[in-house]
């Protein structure tokens, strides 16, 4: 196996860990920023036949450099189709998209995401952009991966607003609400570790910590209790080659940093 890089940034680590989660010959709905970088890295490494889909209509592109927007012309560069939002969202609803890949501002223990508002909806402390395609992606995809920064204000007991559905109030709640069967959040990746969801309770469960991170730090940076299993893996740090690719994908450092 390739040797780990001597130095790497938390963002580089996040992107590499996220990329490894995507499988070859599967399809993924990709959001702005880190999800884009991770999907592009996956395509350039272990998953050359990853079918990348952008919500504005880009289908199966070979993205040359990091797009600024999910509707940017880079999102349909050498694509198999440049179609429409109706086309790709319908494909998602009908079951053609395996993975969703999103960023988030706040999350709760059931993986419910808030990107709409901090404070009251009608009298907001901070107004955030809203759902965009996130609610659709989180509603339709069998496996949604969420990449975000973790601290006590972002890992919260209760999100101020459920923009995008996680497991809502727990087991069975998605189906009861009418969301497609067998869908929901799959992984949450932060600068500290990787999380999944407990089969029985649908609550956030630690799967792996990044090198040098302790389980105590994981818990200290969350306002709710995270399930910690007996065996916790340690993630693989980026290799020099992965770092090189990341900066080739994002030469201006828009999302990966300088």
């Amino acid at each position, binding site marked *: 196996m390739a040797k780990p890089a001597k130095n790497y940034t938390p963002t580089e680590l996040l992107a590499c860990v996220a990329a490894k989660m995507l499988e070859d010959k599967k399809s993924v709905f990709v959001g702005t920023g880190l999800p884009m970088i991770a999907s592009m890295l996956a395509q350039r490494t272990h998953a050359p036949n990853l079918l990348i889909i952008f919500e504005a209509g880009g289908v199966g592109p070979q993205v040359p450099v990091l797009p600024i927007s*999910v509707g940017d012309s880079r999102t349909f560069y050498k694509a198999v189709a440049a179609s429409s939002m109706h086309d790709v969202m319908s494909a998602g609803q009908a079951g053609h998209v395996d993975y969703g890949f999103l960023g988030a501002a706040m999350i709760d223990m059931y993986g419910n995401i808030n990107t709409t508002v901090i404070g009251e909806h009608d009298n907001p402390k*901070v107004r955030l952009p*809203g759902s965009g395609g996130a609610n659709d992606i989180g509603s339709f995809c069998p496996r949604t991966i969420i990449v975000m920064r973790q601290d006590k204000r972002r890992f919260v007991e209760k999100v101020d607003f459920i923009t995008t559905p996680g497991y809502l109030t727990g087991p069975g709640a998605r189906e009861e609400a009418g969301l497609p069967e067998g869908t929901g959040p799959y992984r949450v990746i932060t600068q500290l570790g990787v999380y999944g969801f407990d089969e029985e309770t649908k609550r956030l469960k630690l799967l792996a910590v990044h090198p040098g991170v302790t389980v105590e730090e994981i818990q200290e940076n969350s306002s709710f209790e995270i399930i910690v299993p007996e065996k916790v893996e340690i993630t693989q740090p980026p290799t020099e080659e992965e770092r090189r690719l990341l900066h080739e994908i994002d030469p201006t450092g828009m999302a990966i940093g300088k």
Partner: protein
Amino acid sequence: MEILMEGEGELLGWHDPDENRKWVLENKSRELRDKRMSVKEAVEKFVHDGDYVAFGGFGHIRIAMALIYEIIRQGKRNLAMAGKTAVHDIDILIGAGSVTKVEVAYAFGHELRGLSPAGRRAVETGQCKVVAEISNAGYQWRFLAGMMGVPFIPSRNMLGTDTLKKSACKVVKDPWSGKPVCLIPAAYPDVAMFHVPRCDIYGNAQIDGILIEDFELARAARRVIITTEEIIDNEVIRAKPYRTAIPFFVVDAVCEVPYGAHPTQMPYLYFFDEEHIGEWLGLSRTPEGTKEYLDKYVFGVKDFEEYLELVGGIKKLNYLKRVEQFREPMRAPWLKKK
């Protein structure tokens, strides 16, 4: 059908399908007639105070900016806007005080560039009201229902969330599967505005690259204004009829505006002008700065041609062409903060 849940959001731009059919029959022409006019004339004629408006494109892509500046210049007020992923367009219109109501799928953020100071300030101080939430697919399907002339489209998104609670949608029990299903109401914007690469004098328009929501939006809206990089002959349209994204009979006005999407991106033609977008993002941090921007780029010029000179003229436009075609790297002031 049993109603299981009703969203609290305001229902913008919905009409009884028969009422809208009647409006269409009485107001839309099937005649192939020359619809060319100036941007000024198009806005005077088809955009009115209090209208519910929507723009084609997506965020910073293929936005009819010349029309936006003209709406501000003409002092249109109390517009409600579809935040169907609306970014630079809605930010400037809110900053100028033209838009005071929004139904939001995505707004107030500039994707990788960060959050939008003007739009957020207006919402956080109550100057601009978010009257409903929805998702991108949800908004898209509002237009789909509109273009189909049906009252709603059933869907399986938004269920169980606050996005749904604050939307204008309803949840019912699907009479076939017995499962809860979301009903997304049709939307018929009073006026929708698009920038396209090519269009004939009658309004037959071609679009290069992704259509985003333009196919459905153009057919759902009551009035449609097209700005185009160039006017092409009707024979060019007829030589490749499969390329027509918007047909003439839904179009009310055609305005020839080269570089009409600046500073947003026109796929294959020119890139985002990140220096200009950065200037807006910087100045719009304060109400004074917002006024300074508008005084300089909107009120300080007589038309879009003069504006293009002011933003850097042919030198800048050629540079944006080279960036779009991967012949030069982009320059963006906001990158320094990364």
